């Protein structure tokens, strides 16, 4: 495309054959999704904070909520294992990658089980449902929305784990696994906010 007239510009712009690299589209797309999802969570968190102490009947958060320390530790550790899975894949250590993926899925499952136990306790023993009061409505929807994201993340991680067990996940897929790990980090980050708002600030 360039002709002789364009030579002076080249001297300004540098050589024509400068490498032209743009960000990986998977990462950009995931960043967009995270932004949109974050906006959804913000609205649910705002509703939770806005309705703190506004329930016309009991039970209150102070009476029934306990700190889910064990589940939180599991979920946050799974962020570390998924990170190790990605870096193992990048170095071509496929076995190591599968192992860390399995650890991530396991830790995520444990978190879900602790949430299920908590909900069972709240519904069965304390009689708190989504219909009981504003606390119930906002609590179940916020924690439930997060748990839904954990479930989606776990489904995708299990799929990757399955592929890796059949030896289908290779070094060249590390960029894609990193996109999935971004989502998982986001889900963990949201849990930090939910934990602080619901279990620390909200009690």
């Amino acid at each position: 495309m360039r002709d002789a007239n364009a030579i002076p510009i080249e001297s300004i712009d540098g050589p024509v054959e400068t490498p032209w690299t743009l960000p990986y589209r998977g990462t950009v797309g995931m960043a967009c999704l995270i932004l949109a999802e974050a906006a959804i969570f913000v609205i649910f968190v705002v509703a939770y904070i806005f309705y703190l102490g506004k329930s016309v009947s009991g039970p209150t958060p102070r009476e029934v909520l306990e700190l889910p320390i064990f589940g939180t530790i599991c979920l946050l550790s799974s962020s570390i294992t998924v990170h190790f899975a990605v870096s193992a894949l990048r170095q071509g250590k496929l076995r190591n990658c599968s192992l860390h993926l399995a650890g991530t899925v396991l830790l995520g499952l444990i978190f879900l089980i602790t949430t299920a136990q908590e909900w069972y306790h709240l519904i069965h023993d304390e009689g708190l449902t989504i219909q009981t009061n504003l606390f119930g409505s906002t609590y179940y929807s916020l924690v439930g929305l997060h748990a839904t994201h954990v479930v989606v993340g776990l489904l995708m991680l299990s799929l990757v784990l399955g592929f890796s067990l059949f030896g289908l996940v290779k070094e060249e897929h590390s960029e894609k696994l990193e996109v999935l790990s971004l989502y998982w980090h986001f889900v963990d980050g949201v849990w930090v906010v939910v934990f602080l708002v619901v279990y620390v600030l909200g009690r």
Partner: protein
Amino acid sequence: MSTTQAVEESDETLALQQGRPPLNVVYEWLTTVDHKKIGLMYIAYALVFLLVAGVEALLMRIQLAIPNNHFVSPQVFNQLFTMHGTTMIFFVGMPILFGFGNYLVPLMIGARDMAFPRLNAFSFWISAFAGILLYFSYVGASGLYAAGSAPDVGWFAYAPLTARVFSPGHSTDYWTLAIFLSGIGSIGTALNIVTTIVSMRCKSMKMSRMPLLVWLYLVMAALVFVAVSPLTAAQIMLTLDRYLGAHFFDTQAGGSAVLWMHFFWIFGHPEVYVLVLPAFAFVNEIVPVFSRKAIFGYPAMVAASVGIGFISLSVWAHHMFTVGMDAAANTFFVFATMVISVPTGIKIFNWLATIWGGKVIFATPMIFCVGFLFQFLIAGLTGIMLSAAPFDWQLGNSYFVVAHFHYVLVGGILFALFAAFYYWYPKITGRMMSEKLGKWHFWLFLIGFHLTFDFMHVPGLLGMPRRIYTYEAGRGWGALNFLVGVGAIFQAAGLLCFLYNMIRSYYHGKEASHDPWDAWTLEWSTTSPPPDYNFATVPTVNSRRPLWDLKHPEDPDSDYE
């Protein structure tokens, strides 16, 4: 850069287009992941809904043309304004702008498709399904309680009217689900647009060399994430209220109706900018070409667009002055709303400076842009009037407000859209639209627009509230409402003129060359219509106007940027 003769001759996809059975063509459109076809489907689907919602507007104007009219019942009137508003925003405005974005953004940045073609198809079909779901409510919404059919809660569906007690039956559920699904589609397409712009630009197209249309679509898509998502969240809450007995907006259980208003308008006001930024984008491309000058103040235009994007997130509660917020909140939102007129004003001045001293060609796209400039200015001025809280206390929820936002949506956005249709039609179909019919369309629509929306301000000032289904004689509103109705007929005639022009030009229009307007952006470097792969060789650019550089090698833009 241009598609060479040799490539066209060896292009097998062109031969495949000839003489296929109709079923194959239908199958191809239903399963396509091509950004151009999806863009066209978005536009076609939006035009169908434009007709439907336009008919709803006409029915309302007939009802209001004379006092004490009984053309439609109060219930039907409520359904009409709800469906008109919801359809126009979610199933006309959003899809038609996404359609143009889908079609133009990859072509303008020298890409062969969007970043995620299958997500693109998914987003379109889920939005299309949402629109069909909304209208299916006319058939399926009576439900167990047999109460009403189409949604009748208004397009912003204030709580607690949407509670199960006050809106029994399923009409409100159809509304909620339709908005929820269209929101998912919008977020998907916005994600695609941002990723395409960030990751798919052709070689050497730095951010500072992107056409302004691409910049504005980037800002618009980024706004969609933070604006549409809150609405999606609010719809989830409303569904939980209606189906699982939650209490988010249940005032009996301590829930807050005002919280819904906040959530809705956190979406609602940025949404106005989501709709108007693409309109700015079209004007940014058309005004320079028909003034035969480069755009004035490109960096200022970019900065103003990004500025509008940010400020638009902090103005929502100016829709809520009449709710009774405290003085500090009122002051903040008055201030933020007035501040947003500064970047908007910068844009207006830059367009005027682009026209100033140019060899202006008043072809149909340009006259629509000139109409846009005048009308958007007036819409902005009534906006500044309404942004003053005391003025808003007087006129909130009156026809003055209705006239103001229709001035933005019709006088601004729709005029820019018409300009875009006339400008890019040759690229899309390979034929020119008729200039003569275009002028008829312009003048009919201009007269109709001003009859309707200029006169609509006055009943508002005289105290006529919006959404009433009729009024007594002797209020002084009758003659004005009659004029408003007459204007609506002119607009309908103009719109029919436009549709006829599009269909007729497709078969009988003058054949268009690659570059009928002597323009400068990359979409004009490929054939009309563009081939499936857009560009035979992926282009490289050295400036913001690559085709200018190509046509004027003795004085390329790249010497000055």
